[in-house]
């Protein structure tokens, strides 16, 4: 680890609540500049003022407001929102309809050709019958 790596990595330890990694400890043991930098960073973080919060009365009022909203809200659910269920059911229904339609019995291609031939023969027979009837007339 070089000084740049160590100084980038020391933000993890700036608040003093995480142990130093072995690599970092080794480097710090032999590098006065990085030790100084870590101390400066920690001193800076300690000197930062904490965020300001309102008095307890504010939180009591806020809690009351939250609890009031919760009383009127439905109890916790695994899948909140009935529209999700409705959408899911509609999608399942559509899929079912499509599947049923796609599985309907259809004539095989060979069967279709046979039917076509039969229809052509019928056309020939009809034409012959017409000619016959004209001939008789």
């Amino acid at each position, binding site marked *: 680890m070089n000084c740049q790596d160590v100084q*980038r*990595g020391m*933000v*993890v330890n*700036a*608040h003093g*609540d*995480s142990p130093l990694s072995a690599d970092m400890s080794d480097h710090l043991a032999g590098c006065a500049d990085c030790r100084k930098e870590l101390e400066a*960073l920690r001193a*800076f*973080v300690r*000197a*930062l*003022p*904490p*965020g*300001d*919060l*309102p*008095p307890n009365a*504010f*939180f009591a009022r*806020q*809690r009351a*407001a*939250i*609890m009031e*909203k*919760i*009383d009127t*809200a*439905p*109890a*916790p*659910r*695994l899948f*909140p929102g009935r529209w999700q269920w409705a959408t899911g059911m509609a999608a399942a229904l559509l899929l079912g309809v499509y599947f049923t339609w796609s599985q309907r019995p259809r004539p095989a291609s060979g069967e279709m050709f046979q039917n076509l031939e039969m229809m052509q023969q019928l056309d020939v027979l009809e034409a012959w019958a017409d000619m016959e009837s004209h001939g008789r007339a």
Partner: protein
Amino acid sequence: MDGNVGTMEEQWIIESQSGSAAAFGQLVAIYQGKLFGFLLSYVGREDVADELTQDAFLKAWRGLKGFRAESRFQTWLFQIGLNVLRSWGRREKIRRLRERAFGWVREEGESPRAPEDTLSDRRLDADPHRAADARDLRSRTSAAVAGLPPKEKMVFLLRHEQGLPLADIARVMDVAEGTVKAHLFHALAKLRKNLEGHI
């Protein structure tokens, strides 16, 4: 958090998941200050932070059955808080664009206050000079934090004000831990530079 509170918290979570509003009230009592503090530091307005905190808790209540204890309750709650914050940010952006486009004027009392106005004047020390110095430092720090890019500000606040470990921040923000580390590095470097001579 000590072990006892941890065990009680687990119990409150289980009871809340079964629909006990009273148990959820205990969780609200533990975490409302933390969540509100984070949101307040981020948005800089007490009224907005209050509204967002309430909204986040309501969403947490509704989605509580989805909490699987794979993360800490606080991490899960802050994820919700962050989503609420993002939605608010989008609405604010649209509102500002609309205002700019139509030249709308704010109504009285609606004007956003600078973080220093919101956060000041609460902790008055007995010594007026010290109080003034402390107020000045808080005001400068708030302004410096407010000036950070959004992600750096978020990481800094979650780390410094809420004391969340980097792994939890990564989970809350849904980014890699290395990214959190980089944001924190840049945030601290900028704050040190901006507050040089004051801290």
